[in-house]
């Protein structure tokens, strides 16, 4: 991030100098700051409300309930994990919390699942297949309600900001399923862990 940031600013100044737009570049600094405040002001409202609602979801046991429903699917996706292991539950919980946008709850549970996977991992320095699959699920960013995006749209005068919910869901759902499939595919293509006894057929 350090280099990207530096690069963005330096390029702007050089371009500004060459194009003769340096006055606008200078003005953009203040306009950018102004925009930041505007965005944050609109965010405070919705973030406050949404995290309030989500706290209720957390306490009411909805997360636990949904993750119970998802356990059988998690077992299929993670064949390396013993069927009755608590890791499966953690994985399902991690997914559910992510889907509800509870990032603060999802990460600790996800790390707990990682710790469980590390215990049964044969090479402690190298990621097991289950770990890669779990991370594929997490990096795909499946989320039911993109609350922040909706908030900013609404604040900028969008009449129907929730219009993006289903389209976004289609995109993120596809990316999520692809991520798992790609992880499965790569686990066949990539060399297995060195200390792993897993079969490797190419």
């Amino acid at each position, binding site marked *: 991030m350090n280099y990207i940031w530096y690069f963005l600013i330096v390029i702007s100044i050089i371009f500004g100098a060459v194009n003769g737009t340096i006055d606008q*570049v200078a003005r953009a600094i203040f306009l950018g700051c102004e925009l930041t405040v505007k965005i944050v002001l609109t965010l405070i409202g919705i973030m406050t409300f*949404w995290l309030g609602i989500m706290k209720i979801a957390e306490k009411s046991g909805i997360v636990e309930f949904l993750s119970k429903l998802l356990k059988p699917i998690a077992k299929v996706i993670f064949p390396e994990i013993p069927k009755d292991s608590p890791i499966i539950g953690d994985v399902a919980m991690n997914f559910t919390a992510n889907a509800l946008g509870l990032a603060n709850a999802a990460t600790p549970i996800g790390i707990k699942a990682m710790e469980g996977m590390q215990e049964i991992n044969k090479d402690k320095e190298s990621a097991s297949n289950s770990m890669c699959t779990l991370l594929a699920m997490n990096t*795909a*960013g499946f989320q039911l309600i993109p609350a922040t995006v909706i908030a900013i749209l609404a604040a900028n005068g969008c009449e129907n900001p929730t219009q993006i919910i289903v389209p976004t869901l289609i995109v993120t759902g596809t990316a999520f399923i692809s991520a798992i499939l790609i992880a499965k595919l790569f686990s066949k293509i990539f060399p297995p862990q060195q200390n792993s006894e897993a079969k490797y057929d190419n």
Partner: protein
Amino acid sequence: MTIKTIIDIVSLWTLPTIILIILTTAIIRKIPIYETFIEGAKDGVKVSINIIPYLAAIIVAISMLRASGAIDSLANLLSPILNKLSMPADILPLAIVRSLSGSAALGVFSDIISTHDINSYVSKLAAIMLGSSETTFYVLTVYFGAVGIKKYRYALLTGLSADFIGIAMAIIVTRFFFG
């Protein structure tokens, strides 16, 4: 009714329905919903305040970049390819930054919608692209770091492939619904 109108209606109902389900379940289970709401809402204030430095950093940088004309030059340079992909040049920074930093992506998104019509194709595409993104690099660092994994094997490649599919899907879906 076309698919588009059905999906519009579903989109419209999702949020109220989820709130209703959450509140009703909580009341039945005798959760003190008001106090719980306040407790969670306080976190919301903190999160919003904590994000200010990140947003200021990226929004200012992107505003400068656009004011300098650099984005336009890049757009002209890449326009043959971008046009074929139906990808407006202003989206480019968002497509890159969304895998790197969540707050940076938020900053780029804010910049995009403040300089384009909110109902335009660009704004919708940016919204959908941001709403479906997760910061791949951050997730990998946190999860692998927590358990001391040093060799990521194919995890990064998987994450980035999924990001790429996400970007492509965002364009296809936005064109279908709002194109």
